[in-house]
C-alpha cells in the first residue's frame, strides 16, 4: 500500500480488511471510513518510505 491507491483499490482494501478483523462497516459509514483510510495510508506511506537501520528497535519497552 506504499503507492497511492486508486479509489477502487482503497474501497476494496477497506472492505476486505474490515472483514478480516470482523468489523462490520455500515453503508452509511463506508464513505467516511474510506476517506479516512485514504488519509491514514498517505501518512503510512511517509512512514514506510523512510529507510531505517535494522538495529533500530521499536520505541515501547516491555518490562516483565
Amino acid at each position, binding site marked *: *500500500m506504499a503507492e497511492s491507491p486508486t479509489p477502487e483499490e482503497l474501497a476494496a*482494501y*477497506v472492505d476486505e*480488511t*474490515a472483514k478480516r*478483523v*470482523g*468489523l*462490520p*462497516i*455500515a453503508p452509511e*459509514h463506508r464513505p*467516511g*471510513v474510506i*476517506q*479516512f*483510510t485514504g*488519509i*491514514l495510508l498517505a*501518512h*503510512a506511506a*511517509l*512512514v*514506510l518510505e*523512510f529507510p*531505517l*537501520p535494522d538495529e*533500530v*528497535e*521499536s*520505541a*515501547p519497552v516491555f*518490562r516483565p
Partner: protein
Amino acid sequence: MSVTMSRAEYVASDALGLAASIRAGRVRARAVTEAALAQIAARGPAVNAFTSVLPEQARTDAERVDAALAAGRDAGPLAGVPFAVKDLFDVAGITTLAGSRINRERPPAVRDAVAVAALRRAGAVLMGALNMDEYAYGFTTENSHYGPVRNPHDSTRVAGGSSGGSGAAVGAGLVPLTLGSDTNGSVRVPASLCGAFGLKPTYGRVSRTGSTLFAGSFDHVGTIGRSVRDVAAALDLMQGPDPEDPVCSARPAAPCLPLLGEGVGGLRIAVLDGHFARGGEPAAFAAVEQVAAVLGVSRRVTMPEAHRARAAAMVITASEGANVHLADLKRRPQDFDPLTRDRFLAGALVPAAVYVQAQRFRAWYRARVAELFAEVDVLLAPTTPCPAPRIGQDRIVLDGVEVLTRPNLGVYTQPLSFIGLPVLSVPVTRPGALPLGVQLVAAPFREAHVLRVGALLEAKGVVAAAVSA
C-alpha cells in the same frame, strides 16, 4: 475577612494568588467557591465547558479548608483554589464520560484519578468535569453528544481540543486552573486558542492512573492555567513515580516552582525552522518572532523529519485508539460521535507493518532530537497554525493551500508529543486579536527550562493569559 467575592475580584488573581488570600485570612475559601459557582452558573452555559458541576462536594471541601485555617492548620499550597478536570479523569462518585454517550452506561468511579487526588490533597476545590472531544480524538471539541465548547473570546469559534472545556473554563474566568490530557496537542491547542498557559510535561512525568486512555504511547496529563507559576505549582504537586501506571517514570520528582525566578541565563534558545516555519498563517510565525525578539534569539535550528514524525503519530494514534474501542466499534458504531466514528473505524484497518515501523521511526527520531538538545536547551515554535477557526468550519486556507481544519490544528504539536518532550504553550499578548500560543520546548525532564523562559516572558509582559470580559 471577606465572605463574598465579585467576578472582578475573583478573576483578578491566579490560582496561587487566590490561595495566598485564603491562607492569609483575607477571604474565606467558601466565598471563593461561591464566586466560582456563580461564574459557572452565569457564564458556563455560553461556553458549554462543563459536563457536570459538583456544588455540594465543592462547598464541603471549601468549608474543610476554612475549618483547617481557623484551627491554625496548614490547608495546603492550593488552599481553596477552584479547579476542574477534563471528563476523562475519574472523579469518585460520578461516571467518567470521556466525551462519549457509550460510557454513560458505566458505574460511577470509586476513587479520584491520581492527578486529581494530588490537587485535592493540596487544598484545591474540585468544581466539576469538563467537556471534550469524544474519547479525546479531536482538536476542536465540537462534541455531537454534549454540544460544542465555544471559545470564550468569540462564541462563534471553537475552543480547541480535545481538552476544549479545560481551555474555555480558564479563558472564560470560570476557574483559574484545569487538568487536561495531551496525546497529540490536546492541552496545548486549547491553551493557544483560549489564551491560557498550557503545560504538557514529559511523557511519564505525571501518573495517568485513573484517566481514560486514548493512545497510550502518547497520553500525557497536563495543566491549563492563568500563569506560569500556577501550572508549575500543579506540576510539582502531581509529578513523581506511580507503580500503577506502567509508563510513569521512576525518577524522583524534581520541583520546578522554586526555579522560576532563575531567568534564562545559561539557556541556549533557538527558533525551530523547517516544518515549524511553514504551513501556518503569518500571525502564528509573527507570534514566535515576538517571543524570540524579547529573548534576543535569532538562531534557527531544524528538527529533522518532523513532518514524518507527525505522520507516524497519526498512524500510531489511530491504531491504538481504534483498538481500545474495537469491541464497541464492532457492536454499536452508531453510538459514537459522527466526528470520531469514521476515524476510529479507519484506525482499525491500519496494517501491522505500518504501526511497527512508526514505532521504530519514533526511536530513530528520539535519537536525532536528543542530538539537537546537545546543542540547544529551549526551542520555540508556533502552537497552532492559526487562531480559533469557526465552529463547523471543515476547511481552512493555510500558506495558500486549502486543508482540513481539524487535523491541521495539531500540525506543530504532534511532532513534539510523539517523543514525549515537555512543552509549555504561552499565550502571546495580541491586543484586539484572537489568542495565539507559542510552544517552548525542552529536552525530556527539563520542564524547569521551559517554565523559566515562560516566567521571564510573563514578567516582561510579552505573554499573558486572556480572560474574557
